[in-house]
């Protein structure tokens, strides 16, 4: 139970456990993030970062523990989950209907911000890895989520796009969105309000270069 005057959390994870057979991947992950927070989770390959994010977005069931989030949820998977037979425009229309949006204004803004408006009529199958990732990200953001889960969202981005990504993420935070970015690297620690390290199945607050 929250204290009466405690700030409301946007995302709260309590004691999440997950095992695959005998391998215990998550052993009681707990964290709480407020609205307008840009947070990161880092960890080595196989630490369970993607499993954690899949549990947070509802794609995978936890063995035990609880996940709560307030507001619309956006999730950008690590691998680009797109349909190669459809164009960029058709993807946007499909998700416009899925989210029940009356316009694609936000999607158009994001395409401008990420510089891929010129590919609107292109089939996804012929796009570069970076442009596919931009569309992957846009589909997670176009309904203006209040809690956003991003799994290695800048894979395949060039340097300029990488910087633009952080500028988009910063603006989302300023608008009150709770953004959780999962990465296997801690290069971006300075851009984050909170950083957790997933190690031995547990998430603990962490500052790079200070051990732990």
């Amino acid at each position: 139970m929250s204290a009466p005057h405690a700030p409301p959390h946007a995302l709260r994870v309590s004691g999440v456990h997950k095992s695959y057979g005998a391998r215990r991947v998550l052993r009681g992950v707990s964290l709480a993030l407020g609205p307008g927070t840009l947070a990161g989770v880092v960890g080595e390959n196989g630490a369970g970062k993607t499993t954690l994010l899949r549990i947070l977005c509802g794609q995978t069931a936890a063995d035990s523990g609880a996940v709560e989030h307030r507001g619309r949820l956006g999730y950008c998977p690590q691998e680009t989950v797109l349909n190669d037979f459809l164009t960029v425009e058709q993807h946007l229309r499909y998700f416009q209907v899925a989210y029940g949006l009356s316009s694609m204004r936000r999607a158009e803004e994001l395409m401008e911000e990420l510089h891929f408006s010129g590919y609107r009529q292109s089939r996804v199958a012929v796009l570069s890895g970076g442009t596919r990732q931009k569309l992957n990200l846009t589909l997670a953001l176009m309904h203006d989520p209040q809690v956003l889960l991003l799994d290695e969202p800048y894979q395949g981005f060039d340097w300029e796009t990488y910087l633009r990504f952080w500028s988009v993420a910063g603006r989302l935070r300023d608008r009150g969105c709770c953004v959780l970015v999962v990465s296997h690297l801690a290069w971006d620690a300075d851009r984050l309000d909170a950083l957790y390290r997933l190690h031995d199945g547990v998430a603990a607050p962490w500052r790079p270069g200070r051990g732990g």
Partner: protein
Amino acid sequence: MDNPGRRFATAAAFALLEHTRNRFALVLVVFYIPFWLTMEHWFVAGAPTGFLLRATGRHLTVDGNRLTMVSGAINAVTLIVGFMMFMTTFKSLAFDRRLVLAGYPRVCLLVAKVGAMLLAAALISAYATAVICWYWDPVRPWLLMAGVFTAGVGYGGIGILLGAFLRNELAGLFVIIMTSLLDTMLQNPISNPGATKGGVQALPEYGPTQVSVAAGFSGDTPYGHLMLGPAWFAAMWLLGTAAFRLRTRDHRPAAGRRPLSAAARP
């Protein structure tokens, strides 16, 4: 914006578009069907062939060349429709799961896929029947087309089921080819003219083959057999739907699901 009609129309339009952009399947339809039927027409002797048409209980003696073409058309259509539905289900499963998590109703996606499949199967069956009619005149071409269509629909259901269960493209294609091969060999009048053993009725191509052969060479209409292909489809589709539901489950607590869609916006 939450109009169910719009959701269904969008999903149906994109499901159809996927089929039209499956170039390999289109090449198979356009070239393989006439090639296969032409080869049969060219190479298979037209000697009289006798067999028991179980649907009517009558023994028929017909042109072996024409009988082979009917069987060949069914075989080709089942392979193509089964392959199309396997590929579209297999390739779009992760994408469909993402759509479902974003708020797209599963039922819209599933019904749209079936609608697109029925249209594709109808067009392919009409095309295969037209090729047969190019070479000879079946007694009732429309019923022949219906028989071939029900075969395609049955294998479309098998394709959906395999696409929802299997995790490997090659495995899916292999299972479809082997099933169709076994099915054709065990129950059709060319390879098994007597077909006296009980149980052949349970094979997916049995009903459609009986209907198609009756349409090609007699004035009988085996209405019951016309329903066997769709029955196969229904059974496979139900299993496929259960698998689809299982693989696109939302594991968040019920209270946490509503905010995903704009309908739940404050």
